[in-house]
């Protein structure tokens, strides 16, 4: 497999048939390949997230990241868009499911698609990855330190969300979870609870938890970056997607 890829901004059909912006990266080969929907972190559709999209293309997947803040802030700088979305209470869950469903359909419509699509999300996107996998036909899901899959958001929490405990019975894709043991949201206890619920419900899942890592350990441009955890996490992702999105 070579390292040639094409990356560009496209428009996709999101929730309620609305057109939204997305960042797409596609490798030159292999000719038939899986797809990955990347859900950006709360700071938005930024350079770091687009680097992740290109990395999945380099790994041999068609990858796409929808701009979840497009409706509130079309064309705005990512940090301005994130501030606007925060002030508005974040992305509604129903709209998120519609937008991720649209992104998955877009990937499956590509001539290169083998029909399999996975999802991965970071930070708030980690919870949204699980949410998507509970509501859409996806082949694999990755949750990178998503808060409030379990646990209860405190009063005054800026995102108008609930936990996903009552939806986990509907999880219809194997789940890979990557967490930092120094994270408070999700805390190790929150991760324990998610592990226990998925085990009780017979849901295929695989969790990896890293010492000396807290929240956002994949973020290479932030002090939270932890090279050992991030490198191992990427290896786990490659293995997981290789198993469920290949062929």
């Amino acid at each position, binding site marked *: 497999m070579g390292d040639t890829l094409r990356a560009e901004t496209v428009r996709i059909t999101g929730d309620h048939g609305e057109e939204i912006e997305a960042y797409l990266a596609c490798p030159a080969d292999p000719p038939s390949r899986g797809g990955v929907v990347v859900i950006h*972190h*709360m*700071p938005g559709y930024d350079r770091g997230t687009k680097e992740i999209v290109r990395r999945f293309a380099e790994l041999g997947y068609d990858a796409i990241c929808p701009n979840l803040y497009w409706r*509130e*802030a079309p064309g*705005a*700088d990512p*940090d*301005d*868009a*994130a*501030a*606007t979305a*925060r*002030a508005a209470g974040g992305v509604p869950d129903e709209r998120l499911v519609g937008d991720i469903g649209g992104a998955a359909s877009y990937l499956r419509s590509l001539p290169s698609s083998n029909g399999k699509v996975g999802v991965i999300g970071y*930070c*708030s996107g*980690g*919870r949204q990855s699980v949410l998507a996998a509970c509501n859409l036909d996806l082949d694999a899901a990755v949750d990178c*330190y*998503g*808060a*409030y899959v379990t646990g209860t958001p*405190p*009063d*005054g*929490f*800026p*995102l108008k969300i609930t936990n996903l405990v009552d939806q986990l019975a509907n999880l219809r894709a194997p789940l890979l979870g990557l967490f930092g043991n120094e994270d*408070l*949201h999700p805390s190790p206890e929150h991760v324990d609870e998610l592990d226990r619920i998925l085990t009780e419900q017979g849901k295929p899942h695989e969790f990896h938890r890293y010492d000396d890592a*807290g*929240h*956002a350990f994949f973020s290479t441009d*932030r*002090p*939270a970056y932890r090279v050992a955890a991030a490198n191992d996490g990427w290896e786990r992702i490659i293995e997981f997607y290789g198993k469920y999105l290949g062929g």
Partner: protein
Amino acid sequence: MCTYATVQTTLEGSAKGPEGSWFAVTDAAVYFDHPVHALAEHTLNIDFAAPAKGPAARVAVELTAAAARDLVAAIQAALESAPAALTA
């Protein structure tokens, strides 16, 4: 993931924003969270904004907790130094 409350308030005043232009500020969001730019795990962030003018009408500040407390004290001191009749 943002972990703590976002406190929002309305404001009356002005700020110098993108491309050096002044605009009337109408809203502020204050929250303790991961910064975009400051080299700290968490910072006290303030968005001075004018939502009616769009997302780009924003002046963002990210301060360490100690710096934020120093700023609060400095604002209080400056207000108290002025004649009460002017700051009522």
